[in-house]
């Protein structure tokens, strides 16, 4: 088709203020608006549906009607640039953070960051977690050891009780009052085939972020302790190794961070 025909069709699709494009055949009916609206509906509903599928907890928190208007505005301003719907909405959290009218649910952007990370983890590359025995064999310059984390690992930091709010709105926990409104950092990972969301202990986020950035075990532990005095290295190593978050050990002589 001519690029002009396509442009006119596409423009009419996305702007309900315009009528159907002018170059339709008579068999489309004398008033083709409703017929053309099928396409307009398909585009809007499928893209809004992709967001509803990806951000179910956020949708539950603000309600379907509100979420759908938020999604409608996002779709209009940020149409997908890729045909991979699984990745549509990667920058929805930034949009939510800027959206008006959400002051009362200031944690909503963090919830969408967590949900976006869950989809990425679901589709992340597979890698076999190292068993504990791989660490038992480590000796020598432990402080210089660097760890490669599982490709699914993401840390979502929050000033709100993120994991609790998410759990209550994703069927993982009963809805109820949250008495302790302390900040919670979340770990998202998929060591095998199930995606997990875990609340990180104090300093855990700094520890993981440092490791993911290529810091040595000693440096990562140091940075975590600097951020949180209560950082407990043993507890974090249990989570790291027992949780299957490590897929490779890079001994000291293998040079700098990736």
């Amino acid at each position: 088709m001519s690029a002009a025909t396509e442009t006119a069709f596409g423009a009419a699709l996305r702007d309900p203020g315009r009528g159907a494009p002018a170059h339709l055949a008579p068999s489309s009916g004398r008033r083709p608006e409703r017929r053309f609206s099928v396409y307009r509906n398909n585009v809007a509903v499928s893209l809004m549906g992709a967001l509803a599928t990806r951000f179910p907890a956020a949708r539950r928190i603000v309600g379907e009607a509100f979420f759908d208007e938020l999604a409608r505005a996002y779709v209009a301003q940020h149409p997908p640039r890729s045909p991979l719907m699984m990745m549509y909405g990667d920058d929805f959290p930034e949009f939510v953070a800027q959206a008006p009218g959400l002051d009362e649910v200031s944690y909503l952007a963090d919830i969408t960051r967590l949900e976006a990370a869950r989809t990425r983890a679901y589709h992340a590359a597979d890698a076999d977690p190292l068993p504990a025995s791989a660490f038992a064999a480590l000796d020598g310059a432990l402080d210089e050891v660097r760890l490669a984390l599982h490709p699914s690992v993401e840390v979502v930091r929050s000033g709100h009780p993120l994991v609790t709010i998410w759990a209550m709105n994703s069927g993982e926990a009963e809805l109820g009052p949250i008495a302790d409104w302390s900040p919670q950092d979340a770990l998202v990972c998929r060591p095998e085939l199930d995606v997990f969301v875990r609340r990180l202990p104090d300093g855990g986020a700094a520890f993981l972020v440092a490791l993911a950035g290529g810091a040595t075990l000693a440096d990562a532990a140091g940075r975590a302790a600097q951020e949180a005095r209560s950082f407990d290295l043993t507890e974090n190593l249990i989570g790291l190794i027992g949780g299957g978050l490590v897929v490779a050990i890079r001994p000291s002589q293998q040079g700098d961070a990736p």
Partner: protein
Amino acid sequence: MTPTALPATSGVGFKPEHFAAILEAGFDGFLEVHAENYMGAGGPPHAMLGRLREDHALSIHGVGLSIGGAGPLDRDHLARLRTLCDRYAPESFSEHLAWSTHDGDFLNDLLPLPYTQETLRRVVAHVDQTQDALGRKMLLENPATYVTFAESDVPETEFLAEIARRAGCGLLLDVNNVFVSATNHGFSADAYLAAFPLDFVGEIHLGGHDAQEDDAGAPLLIDAHGAPVADPVWTLYERVLARTGPIASLIEWDNDVPDWSTLAAEAKRADALMAGAARRRAA
């Protein structure tokens, strides 16, 4: 001879929620998946598809290549399709006579194009390019449409036949799409099928549609894949089978996905019609 190695049986569009039921209850037919849902690096989608591939013939059905678009094909997407086809070696790869990408924006629907000599040349070039990129022949599917274009001067059946001849691809005949378009545009589905180049057809699609009305109160059918295959579509399918004999036939059910037994029953119905057609042709 069409470029597909799918068995002449029924098949179903695979939905993750049916994974356990398929393993438990067993299924003799082939499976079809939408390519774009398997373009992540890893995780459960590939684990499930890899497991099912051990027991089933596979059709990979693309929904996002925009073969009918005015712009160039997305080379990154072609590369992703190649990776997917190399990984699973499907018995068939197919895409749609439609467009969905314009100026880099993905509209996530199968949009219609006018049928002219100009668009014919472009679609043929795009099919050529796709087949070269994938290193295999493909099937191209007839669309369900809600509007048509004043500039179209080639009938859809002729348009598809000419693409198949020039590009050497096969065709995927969606019988529900034929019924939907025929109703929407007031032509005879039987006449359309009589003109359809069945020799090129490597697979048939059967799906449910939704019935509404347009502004003038005329019937407006929508290809919604959210219901059982409608009776008139089964009838058309039977008439096609009388001419082709048994042929890979897929039940598509993408919205309001039913439980496995309901979907499997639809597939069984297609198998029964194929068996009947085979008996009559042998007689």
